[in-house]
């Protein structure tokens, strides 16, 4: 059995010392991996990432994370990644991780992703340089996700981990006007192309927990304000404890 715990939108601040770690007390008994879907911190500051690292230090469960928009706010992504890696957290920015669990392999392809909207009501790479740059960013992120998913195609279970949502279905509850700022269908197209087994995202605090891509891949919004727990649990099939086998970076 492959057991996955997932949460997003922790929004850890300097006022969060000791707030998240108690929720992880029994994680190692319940899950083989913890996946974090971005907005790990409130302001993206180095000090906040040190607080987060302490909350996650010493876990007996592998942890992988993508950043969210809040984590980019102060421009310290490189340093913040190092802080998380110092406590063993794998940060996936267009990269993948493979965990072996007995005879089975779990592949996780992760990227923050970006916005732009959903099929039929989305932005196009047209007009002003700023608009073209905006949509190009989404296209590049979707392509990075596609390449990372391709790299884990041989795994028994393949998970796409993003911050922004690949579908509208998990945004129900948000104001329609802000949908274009909550994600992009291009992420779903990459997920469907790879026939992933599960897509996890955060970002949408007022959204809903369950949805599905046009290709039938289950999508789960694991933002903590939605799941109301320290993490959501998912399971696939049957087998035991994990070891990190390989990591890599897509070049999209």
């Amino acid at each position, binding site marked *: 059995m492959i*057991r996955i*715990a997932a949460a997003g939108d922790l*929004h850890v*601040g300097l*006022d*969060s010392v000791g*707030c998240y770690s*108690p*929720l992880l*007390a*029994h*994680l190692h008994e*319940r899950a083989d991996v913890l996946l974090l879907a971005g907005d790990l911190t*409130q*302001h993206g500051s180095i000090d906040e990432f040190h607080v987060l690292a302490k909350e996650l230090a010493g876990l007996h469960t592998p942890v992988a994370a993508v950043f969210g928009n*809040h984590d980019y*706010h102060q421009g310290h992504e490189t340093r913040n990644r190092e802080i998380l890696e110092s406590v063993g957290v794998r940060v996936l920015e267009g990269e993948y991780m493979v965990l072996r669990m007995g005879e089975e392999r779990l592949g996780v392809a992760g990227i923050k992703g970006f916005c732009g909207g959903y099929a039929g009501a989305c932005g196009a790479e047209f007009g002003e340089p700023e608009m073209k740059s905006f949509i190009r960013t989404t296209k590049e992120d979707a392509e990075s996700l596609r390449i990372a998913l391709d790299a884990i195609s041989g795994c028994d*279970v393949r998970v796409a981990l993003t911050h922004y949502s690949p579908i509208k279905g998990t945004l129900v509850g948000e104001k329609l006007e802000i949908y274009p700022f909550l994600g992009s269908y291009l992420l779903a197209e990459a997920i469907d192309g790879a026939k992933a*087994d*599960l897509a996890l995202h955060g970002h949408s*605090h*007022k959204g809903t927990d369950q949805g599905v891509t046009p290709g039938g891949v*289950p999508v*789960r919004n694991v933002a*903590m*304000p939605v*799941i*109301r*727990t*320290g*993490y*959501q*649990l*998912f*399971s*696939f*099939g049957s087998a035991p404890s994990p070891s990190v086998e390989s990591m890599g970076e897509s070049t999209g």
Partner: protein
Amino acid sequence: MEYGPTLHKSYLVARVREALAEDPRLNELDIQVTVAAGKVFLLGEVASQERRRQAAIVAAEVLPEGIGLVNNLHVARYTESSDVEELR
């Protein structure tokens, strides 16, 4: 209702939301702001008492004189974990 020569109700909501999102003391993007009965209401959830307190400070700083503020924000509470969803 008008809130001064140039500040209509909808602009007041926008100004408060902008402050809550962009003020470096807070950076909260999901607080609902509503104007009713001549007052500004802050609605929704934040992660801590400190952020709840800070939200009221930030909002009050951009309100025109004489406009009241009602802080109905509550602090999020989370349990440890969910039941397991079996996907395959």
